[in-house]
């Protein structure tokens, strides 16, 4: 177990549990996307530019 200090906000038990369940599910999508772009790059496709890097048009 790694050490991490306890947060100063109470994250809430139910909130942590639902977050973990959701994150596992949603993380699968991200992992698949990451593997897919790695496969594509093997065949010479350029990775998509990261829109979060330079501007905030939110």
């Amino acid at each position: 177990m790694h050490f991490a200090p306890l947060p100063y906000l109470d994250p809430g038990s139910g909130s942590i549990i639902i977050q973990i369940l959701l994150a596992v599910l949603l993380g699968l999508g991200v992992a698949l996307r990451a593997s897919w772009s790695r496969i594509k790059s093997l065949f010479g496709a350029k990775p998509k530019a990261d829109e979060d890097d330079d501007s905030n048009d939110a």
Partner: protein
Amino acid sequence: MPDTGQLSASFRDPSGFLFTDKGILYRQINRVYSKDYARLMDSGLYERLVKAGLLIPHVEAGHVSVKSDAGFKVIQPERAPFISYPYEWSFSQLKDAALATLSIQKRALKLDMSLKDASAYNIQFVRGRATLIDTLSFEIYKEGRPWTAYKQFCQHFLAPLALMSCSDVRLNQLLRVYIDGVPLDLASELLPARTRLNFGLLTHIHIHAGAQKRYSDKTVKPQANALRVSRHAMTGLIESLENTIAKLSWKPAGTEWGDYYENTNYTDSAFEHKKNLVSEWALEKKPALVWDLGGNTGVFSREAASSGAFTVSFDIDPAAVEQNYRSVKSKKEQNILPLVVDLTNPSPSIGWDNRERDSFGARGPVDMALALAVIHHLAISNNVPLPQLSQFFAAHCKWLVIEFVPKSDSQVVKLLTSREDIFPEYTREGFESAFSARFKIHKTEAVRDSERTLYLMEAQ
């Protein structure tokens, strides 16, 4: 605020606190936060966020000594020109604040940091954009650890946005009651059943609220081994919140004054004359901060702002404020801040000891206030006697640009058709006498092609 001590808005976070000294705003960083601060500065995250307009810039104030033994460093952050609160924002302002928070979290994760809180009060509008003003919101990211701010993010941003978009835009007023955001069980109850068909709202609000209830008496340790959220999983969670919020929308239509300027009794020349007078008087008095009280979509706020003043444009109508904010965004205007405020019941001071969030009045007084086409609403629709109106304005500004709208004006005639005229003092003479008690009237101009009069007054 007292000019020495700690500000009453920042006391929960042990990482540090805000204080003022000789009118300058500083933030003390405590020793417990020194590693996180070093990572923020050394990783390049600070620079990237400031460059993107997402984080308030600061300089290290080596000449200012720490205020307590726990202190490690003092920084001087740029001061936001006006502090506003989420219950004063229009839909798009809250949405942009939410998306800015998530964008910051995504960028932070890339450089191994994470937001340890996601409070809407940490976001302010600076140069027209939603900007994080709490430099101490970051912590070193430990892969595997859940996002401690997830619950707070849902309460402060997602729940009110969903309610505004799917139920009623006025429900953001719940934030005035619930200072730590809308409780998710309440949001879940108030949201229409169809929101359960939306994956993001179903999971982050409805199921989330259910889980909170179910585990309310159980303890979960966030660093327990089984409870790991991998980096991919964290990214997935943030992106899901981002997608859910990006799809929420609200169209300002059919509310009080949204199309007011198309339905006035004004001629173009009266309108232009009024604009010219406001701009001329603002240029003459050079106010640093202007409040446009009853600013509608901000036409006259822009005249004041063109003098270089930072202008806060208050209106009661969320549709007008939404339109105003959209034009701030599309024209990239940096010195106009539209806010929803009901002048007959302005924001109170709220929170711990009633001092955490300042009331409307405590954020003034300002150099100049505009009260255009608003006096008849306050005096006639809302029954406020003229002497009290004069007292109200005198408490909030030095210079007042105010328009008197007589009873013969068709807008006032309309207000009086459905009720008894119990306002014998509501005449130009009555107005001037009531306002002369608190102000020196410097200029009086009849607005061309209308029965209205514009005054420039100075509070005594």
